[in-house]
């Protein structure tokens, strides 16, 4: 166990190192330079460009830029080129904005997809199963932005509820209960949208997992013993079908930072995804690279946690 943990941590660190190199190369080898953002600007003299290049180490060879960047990142000194804010602080603020979206979305995903998936595996081939299947394909296939507009039209014309932004503009100063309701309304649509794809995929996965377990011999034995079907489904089958989902808890982690670029930009939600999008537009390399690095750390931590959970939950696995 300990040796497994040690080995996998070393392995993940090596992977992280290569990820940092690859992402750095992708950004810096792409054509164009951040110092040439606006060549037409008359205030932007060549001397100034040269000064900026020196200030941000852009005139040095790539490997030294790499070392400078990651030295700054680990000492927490990375600053955004756009507004000179510390990159980590910026990301943290945006992360706090994205967090409620992520939490509500995850809760919706996990609480809805399990009942739907289990029920459609039990009712296999019947009307419920077929309609659930069709709807989950529909939700997987619908482009997020299109679905967002359908929902916006529907909600705005039917309920006259504000949907854009984190709260109604200028609504401060009213009573706290109104504030909370206002925030909740604004949270509703984006988190539903964030959850739809997850619900569709996860419920399909629950269904196939349940079907696989239901075909096992011990389930047939349980049924042959004359156990009531609830007990067979929920005690014998479901418990074993749940195993792989334990590992999926680890996979949630990367979703923390990925956010959704498209949904956040439709709803003007000042979250992670939108910050990343704005950073890309502004060629703000330190922010792009930091987001990339943090999300790689989260992916690796997620797989590590899911491996550990799997070992704890399933005694048959010896790594």
């Amino acid at each position, binding site marked *: 166990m300990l040796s497994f943990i040690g080995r996998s941590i070393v392995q993940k660190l*090596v*992977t*992280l190192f*290569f*990820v940092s190199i*690859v*992402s750095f190369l*992708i*950004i810096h080898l*792409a*054509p*164009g330079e951040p110092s040439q953002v606006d060549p037409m600007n008359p205030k932007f003299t060549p001397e100034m460009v040269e000064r900026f290049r020196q200030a941000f180490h852009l005139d040095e060879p790539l490997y030294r830029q790499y070392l400078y960047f990651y030295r700054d990142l680990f000492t927490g000194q990375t600053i955004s080129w756009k507004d000179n804010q510390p990159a980590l602080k910026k990301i943290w603020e945006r992360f706090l904005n994205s967090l409620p979206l992520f939490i509500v979305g995850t809760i919706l995903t996990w609480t809805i997809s399990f009942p739907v998936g289990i029920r459609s595996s039990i009712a296999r*081939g019947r009307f419920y199963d077929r309609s659930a*299947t*069709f709807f989950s*394909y*529909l939700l*997987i*296939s*619908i*482009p*997020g*932005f*299109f679905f967002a*507009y*359908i929902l*916006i*039209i529907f909600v705005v014309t039917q309920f006259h509820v504000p949907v854009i932004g984190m709260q109604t503009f200028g609504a401060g100063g009213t009573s706290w209960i109104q504030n909370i309701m206002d925030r909740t309304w604004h949270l509703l649509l984006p988190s539903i949208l964030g959850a739809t794809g997850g619900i569709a995929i996860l419920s399909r996965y629950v269904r*196939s997992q349940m*079907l*696989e377990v239901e075909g096992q011999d011990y389930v047939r034995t349980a049924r042959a013993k004359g156990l009531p079907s609830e007990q067979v489904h929920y005690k014998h089958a479901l418990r074993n079908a749940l195993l792989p989902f334990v590992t999926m808890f680890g996979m949630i982690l*990367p979703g923390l*930072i*990925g956010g959704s*670029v*498209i949904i956040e*930009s439709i709803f003007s939600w000042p979250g992670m995804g939108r910050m*990343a*999008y704005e950073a*890309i*537009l502004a*060629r703000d390399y330190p922010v*792009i690279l930091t*987001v*990339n690095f943090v*999300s*790689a750390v989260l*992916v*690796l931590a997620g797989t590590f946690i899911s491996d550990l959970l799997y070992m704890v939950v399933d005694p048959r696995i010896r790594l």
Partner: protein
Amino acid sequence: MNNTSENAQYQDLTLEEPAAPKRTRLQQFWRLFKRNRLAILGLIIFVLFFCCALTGLVLTSGSKPVFDPAQVRLEEKLLPPLTRPNPETLQPNEIPPMGIYLFGTDDLGRDVFARMLQGAWVSLTVGFVAVGISVLVGIFMGGLAGYFGQHYIHTGHLLWTAFLTAGIGLLAANHPVAGIIILAGAALGPFFFGPGKKLPGAGILKKRTISVDTLIMRFVDIMLCFPSFFLILTVVALLPASIYNIMIIIGLTSWMGATRFVRAEFLSLREQDFVSAARALGLSNFRIIFRHMMPNAIAPVLVSATIGIATAILTEAGLSFLGFGVPPPHATWGNILSDGKRFIFDAPWLTFIPGFAILVVVLSFNLFGEGLRDVMNPKLRERQ
């Protein structure tokens, strides 16, 4: 006497048709596939979409297209679907060929039907080319890892690669003389230190480092660490806007699944008897891989490719929506929708028509792919 009758009996038996009706693989596949009505629906829609995209390409390209997607008619802007153009304010060559705006017009008075036709071809090619690239890379990497995985990379190989990279790097960095010298050194290296050569100190070049399998699978792990849509967005934003860049980038960021499938299949197939037999017959590796192993390993790749096409179409639409798609005069479904979002309450057809088109096409690919998976996976088949 007895003997002959027995013989006759055997003859009867051999002449009889085999009890189970013999079907080819394809027939059997079709028989199972036919039962899945949703998958059939997906296939039909896919064929229709393919025809639409082809006719759209023919009708909207060239110097004098039948449907001109770029024709601007400012008098006729934001007309709802099925309106007739007003012949009094338009030049005769501006009137759409069917005498009606089937899907209405957009904010510049361009015919949405013509733009949709043009966009269909973009969606189709993006889906197929991107997935083609990712499947090719996936098969190559997966095949390498699965078939030659147990081979080790020697220090000599690493040194050679380092020389090659350094040479190319120097060439690119305007040091042609040094670059050429180092490249020549790399090219001549195998003649001096190649297999069978006994040179003092050559042993150090034969030190094993890591296996091919480890190398490739670690690379897959590294690629999986990137948040894919964010990575695609970054690269597309940094590169010049062009449809080919988008296809290549989507393809190069989605090959990891195919690699894993091919590798897993190859690892189990290479232990099987028919591969040993092929090797015993002295067939070349190339022939064993492509003639004997690949047909048995391709099923999961095909399924994931079909679903990958759906994902690629969605990704392209998302990029167009964010403004990173195909450059403006050219229409794609994503940018028709993204242009139309400003008029969402006044001209909802600009949002709904491309949205539904994307939805239906992506849905058809997903349904077809899932149907394929059900047919090809004996475990999920219903017990009969």
